[in-house]
């Protein structure tokens, strides 16, 4: 009785349908990998797989926030790279890792504010604005240590504490990377689904003008979304730095596209206003499990690209079909020309 109600309530959440469909796909996929190579389900690999999913989940969250406002963030990958390089450079120059991480995050957040301002304040198309910041942030990543990867960030206890905190350490037997991603997911899921800011993000993506007329400060809302995006990307940069123990200039390459894929597979619409972060979890899991599982299955890299491409197209295709069906019924989002005055 109780469970039944809960189930009903779960199903009534919008976007849950796509999440469940894709979730079933994920389970089937994992089973297939498990059959091909039973080690796929070994505890070591599960822990490992989850740790590999963590950064994808984080950039997925980043992209989801921006996509829901009806925009896109192409700078995610470069911000990851910038965060990795800036923090590592500071550390190799003797700055305390925690201070370095703090400075790095401030720079990343600034990039987020800049993105939001260019898109919402200056009204640049988000694709172009963030294409610009993407190039610039990558440039910063390259120039900060004079166009070289950094040396090791150090082997001292503080550096090791930093590396353990973001990647190598465990808490309650779980890798810290996973814990960080899960905690941030809960925070941002709460922000998106339960708070005023979250509502504003959906409203802005659904109908910017209507949101504005309802008293929503759409400029601030879009900036907030980009700041969340930059925050998550910055954290992934720190995780990458902790993982490799150094700054690499091409860290995070193409992450913005993985992020779009994870979000979209999970049901976040690129047209704005739609999607839930639970979907992003499933999308990130599919992405991570594919990479890991195909390696376990011994498939060459090329096959992986083809499989991933097909999965992306198919999952959006499904989404569009579902949405079209609903749109027909409700006549929403038709591209009516505005306001011809009609006497009645």
């Amino acid at each position, binding site marked *: 009785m109780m469970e039944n109600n809960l189930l009903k309530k779960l199903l009534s959440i919008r976007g849950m349908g796509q999440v469940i469909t894709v979730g079933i796909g994920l389970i089937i996929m994992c089973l297939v990998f498990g059959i091909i190579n039973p080690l796929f389900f070994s505890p070591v690999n599960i822990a490992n797989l989850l740790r590999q999913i963590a950064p994808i989940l984080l950039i997925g969250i980043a992209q989801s926030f921006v996509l829901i406002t009806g925009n896109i963030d192409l700078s995610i990958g470069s911000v990851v790279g910038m965060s990795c390089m800036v923090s590592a450079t500071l550390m190799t120059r003797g700055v305390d890792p925690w201070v370095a991480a703090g400075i790095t995050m401030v720079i990343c957040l600034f990039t987020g504010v800049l993105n939001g301002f260019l898109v919402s304040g200056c009204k640049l198309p988000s694709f172009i604005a963030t294409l610009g910041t993407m190039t610039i942030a990558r440039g910063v990543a390259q120039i900060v240590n004079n166009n070289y990867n950094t040396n090791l960030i150090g082997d001292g206890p503080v550096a090791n504490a930093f590396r353990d905190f973001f990647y190598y350490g465990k808490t309650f037997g779980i890798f810290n990377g996973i814990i960080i991603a899960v905690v941030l997911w809960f925070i941002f899921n709460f922000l998106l689904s339960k708070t005023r800011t979250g509502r504003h993000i959906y409203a802005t993506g659904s109908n910017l003008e209507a949101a504005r007329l309802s008293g929503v400060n759409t400029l601030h809302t879009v900036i907030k979304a980009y700041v969340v995006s930059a925050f998550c990307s910055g954290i992934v940069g720190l995780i990458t730095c902790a993982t490799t123990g150094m700054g690499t200039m091409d860290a995070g390459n193409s992450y913005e596209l993985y992020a779009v894929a994870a979000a979209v597979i999970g049901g976040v619409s690129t047209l704005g206003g739609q999607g839930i972060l639970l979907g992003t979890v499933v999308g990130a899991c599919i992405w991570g499990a594919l990479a890991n599982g195909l390696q376990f299955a011994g498939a060459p890299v090329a096959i992986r690209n083809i499989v991933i491409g097909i999965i992306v197209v198919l999952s959006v295709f499904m989404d569009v079909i579902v949405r079209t069906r609903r749109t027909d019924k409700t006549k929403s989002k038709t591209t009516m020309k505005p306001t*011809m005055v009609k006497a009645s």
Partner: protein
Amino acid sequence: MADYIVTMEHICKSFSGVKALDDVSFYLRSGEVMALLGENGAGKSTLMKILSGVYTRDSGEITIFGKKVGDMTPHKAQALGVAIIHQELNMCSHLTVAENIFLGREKCRGGILTDKEMNEEARRLLNRLKIDIDPQTVVGDLSVSKQQMVEIAKALSTDARVLIMDEPTSALTSKEIDELFAIIRDLKKNGCGIVYISHRLEELQYIVDRVTIMRDGKFITSAAFKEITMPEIITNMVGREIKEKFPRVKTKRGQKVFEVKNINAGKMVRDISFELYEGEIVGIAGLMGAGRTETTRAIFGVDPKDSGEIFINGEPVTINCPMDAIKAGLVLAPEDRKKDGLCTGLSIKENIALPNLDILCNGLGVVNQKKETEMIEKAVTSLNIKLSNPENDAASLSGGNQQKVVVAKWLARNSKVVIFDEPTRGIDVAAKVEIYNIMNELKQEGIGVLFVSSEMPEIMGISDRILVMCDGRITGELDQENVTQNAILEYATRFESKVV
């Protein structure tokens, strides 16, 4: 029978289960103007969109010039000599007038577009129609009424023998309307059959030969215009009697709640000053394009103001964005619910809650779900919104109920002043009365109501006081007792200088 150039028989069309057309038949002769009449949503546009190939019918038969045609496409319709002027503007705003006119049937020589020729031909066409537009202007740079004229010219350029005009005059000036009528008479003489859809019944007498009336997707009657009276037409259209079309309640006028002084914003809002008292509905009347919508937007802080002051309860308030206005107790239900009113894709609940999140959230910005549910339940019952589940997409509601949601958004909070901009646009008669009742309730609660409308009967029927606007200025004020249509019209046409 034999001289019908278009026959449509037993046409049915559903949109996802909702029947928009139910066994409708329609006949058109050559050389006649057929008025297609009916309330909003009666299915007029849908029927004509089927004839012009925009939609495909579910069942029924279409015969054009004696030939049965199967599924129509816009292209096929063009080839058959059927042209349509759509109700909504449909122009490629980046292209020039001539390019738009010839879109889809560009003239080519050896595969090369002959732009010079097309420009010349467009120029000749526009001259013939006495439309003063350079064919090489980009359409996006034209005013709405000019764009509408271009659309008409485009339809005429096809040498169509069947011409469908879906509310062509709704965006035209009176001079342009006269020109259009002259063109229509011309076409009639040349044997063209014309379908004319309009809600301006007074226009019909100048051009129409026959009328076909529809209601709720069904064919009701068809008759020669001379043999049917206007009251008969209206009864056939509405299909029911509305007892009290404009319910009015009496209240005592209270304190001054709202005052606007010398507001200027752009060219369409010039030196606007007025005041509003508790428990009163003030109507704002005017011709289309008088700047009423712009005025409300400027007051509400949507568009920037150049100058002016606003007082609520005698206190000056600064309004630079809608949030300022909302905080000060002033709300606006905007004119265009699709564009400005609703977030489609979000639930009904979320739409109603959106402007009230400041009330519904705790200090940390977390939405109180319980309070939210209560608020929505209250709004739904008090406005009698017909819905199955408040979690459903707002777009799943019918137009009238969507409009109610737009209104409901603003009633959940204790505002002092409520502005309604064309709240009854596009909704049926019964729903209209419900909206009037809501306004009356607000009035009784002592809230100041500002009511913008283009419909004279309703503005005269509901308002306690009427302000008339022309050319971005307030040109007159009328009391409920001594208001007449002519008085309103007189003020509404007080232009500063003669507009060309």
